């Protein structure tokens, strides 16, 4: 019997634990903790789903929000607009700065260090501090008021470090031979970056951008005082300066008003599903990248 040499039978295991109570104790600690984690996870998931799904009604998706029908449609559309705007700002800046850090900057220069430290600092700042900064700078100093624009600028600063870091990693993962091959064929630096390096780094960058979307969708604290809480789809010429609420802010408003618990359940499910799909999609792309 070849396989039995390295296999320990159940009985042997029990005997080993009998001889060493400490090992048994540690083993039990590990198992109990894992069971606690899994139980919390399952409970949270199923509770929200079971309570929420029956409350998802067609009325929730009606075009207009009113106190009689707290439709989440305007908030959903605002979330999409807010996401697109924030990405329009954050994605180019984040990707370009990653390009600078990886392709242009001299290794170990002081400036690069400062950029790294500031990016790390940014990623640690709590969202309420971003919200307050947005209120002081975009809303008050620049005079944009509580608006779509103030909100998306605030969010774009918030997700900038995330996009920077993931893009940087994606660019670094492109083998140097690609660049050398491109130079060898007579291409300049810029052409090499845009034609050779960026296309091969796209999946990694995309994974980071999608993670950024997930953060935008889930964000509340940074938006309450920068984009406000008006539950209407911005329209007209100055729509960028209209106050809006995203789905997360909508959810917070519903819970704090305390009158619309059922709708809050439904909104929780929808938020949960959106964010989960986004995160899943991101890791799917990232996995595909590492395979190829």
């Amino acid at each position, binding site marked *: 019997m070849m396989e039995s040499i390295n296999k320990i039978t159940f009985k042997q295991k029990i005997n080993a634990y009998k001889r060493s109570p400490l090992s048994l104790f540690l083993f039990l600690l590990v198992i109990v903790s894992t069971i606690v984690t899994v139980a919390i996870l399952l409970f949270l998931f199923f509770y929200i789903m079971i309570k929420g799904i029956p409350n998802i009604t067609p009325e929730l998706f009606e075009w207009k929000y009113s106190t009689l029908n707290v439709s989440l449609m305007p908030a959903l559309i605002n979330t999409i607009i807010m996401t697109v705007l924030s990405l329009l700002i954050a994605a180019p800046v984040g990707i370009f700065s990653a390009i600078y850090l990886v392709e242009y900057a001299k290794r170990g220069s002081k400036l690069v260090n400062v950029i790294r430290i*500031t990016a790390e600092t940014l990623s640690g700042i709590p969202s309420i501090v971003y919200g307050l900064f947005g209120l002081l700078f975009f809303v008050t100093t620049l005079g944009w008021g509580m608006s779509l624009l103030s909100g998306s600028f605030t969010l774009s600063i918030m997700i900038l470090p995330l996009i920077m870091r993931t893009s940087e990693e994606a660019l670094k993962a492109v083998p140097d031979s690609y660049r050398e091959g491109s130079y060898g064929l007579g291409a300049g630096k810029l052409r090499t970056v845009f034609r050779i390096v960026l296309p091969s780094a796209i999946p990694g960058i995309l994974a980071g951008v999608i993670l950024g979307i997930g953060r935008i969708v889930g964000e*509340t604290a940074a938006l309450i005082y920068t984009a406000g809480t008006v539950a209407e789809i911005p329209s007209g010429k100055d729509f960028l300066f209209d106050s809006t609420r995203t789905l997360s802010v909508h959810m917070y408003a519903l*819970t704090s008003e305390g009158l619309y618990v059922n709708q809050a359940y439904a909104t929780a499910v929808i938020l949960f599903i959106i964010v989960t799909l986004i995160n899943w999609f991101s890791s799917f792309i990232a996995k595909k990248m590492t395979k190829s």
Partner: protein
Amino acid sequence: MKYKEKIMNIIFFAAACTSILAVALICLFLFVNGIPAMAKIGVFDFLLGKTWKPNNIPPSYGIFPMIMGSIYVTAGATILGVPIGILTAVFMAGYCPKGLYRILKPAINLLAGIPSVVYGFFGLIIIVPLIRDAFGGTGMSMLTASILLAIMILPTIIGVSESAIKAVPQNYYEGGLALGASHERSMFFVVIPAAKSGIMTAVVLGIGRVIGETMAVIMVAGNQPRMPAGLLKGVRTLTANIVIEMGYAADLHREALIATAVVLFVFILIINLLLSLLKRRAK
């Protein structure tokens, strides 16, 4: 052609400087608005004052209750969340069968992605009534907030410590076994000490998340602006103080709230410093 290269070079450079600009602007706006208020109130009265009554005449702006609130809630969440998180990470790294791992890993990542409002809502409808039924009172308390935040930091702690444990070379573990240690002894007394700095990073990251958490805390902590009076009494954290009162605050009150954010910001800077020290040591 050369011309285009130069322009793009400058654009890339400018983009890279955005994060410096952003940090500078955030510091500038917070400090310019917050520091004078601190000076006006008196640094000691502000930081160590035990009453926060901005509507009184004369008003008193002491944020010591909120500082202690944040510290207590953070400590509570750490005490509850860290052991469970690290032990689960040990399970993931050293016990988990492959098939289970394929389900458990994405499930824990899923937990990490849930927005904090959803957590807050969950805390409000599940944990608050549980605490109310078990211990009486309103159920909105330091304990409730600690439990909820402990749940929220679990995925961070599990994920980071798991990769720290997995980064320890396999021969450490095998060496332990070869010396006659059991699987548990080898994991706990050889592998985990070797992964110490990675696990510490996980803990510090978790603490950073708890201190900065806002929406979930507001929904379950009760938010009374007084000195924390016990596990089952309501508390208000620094973050909650800002969100709750910023909507209607004016003048010095508003500036005092911004100064609250400055204090929070300093806390976060200290945590970031700790993190970079840990990273340097790991290298």
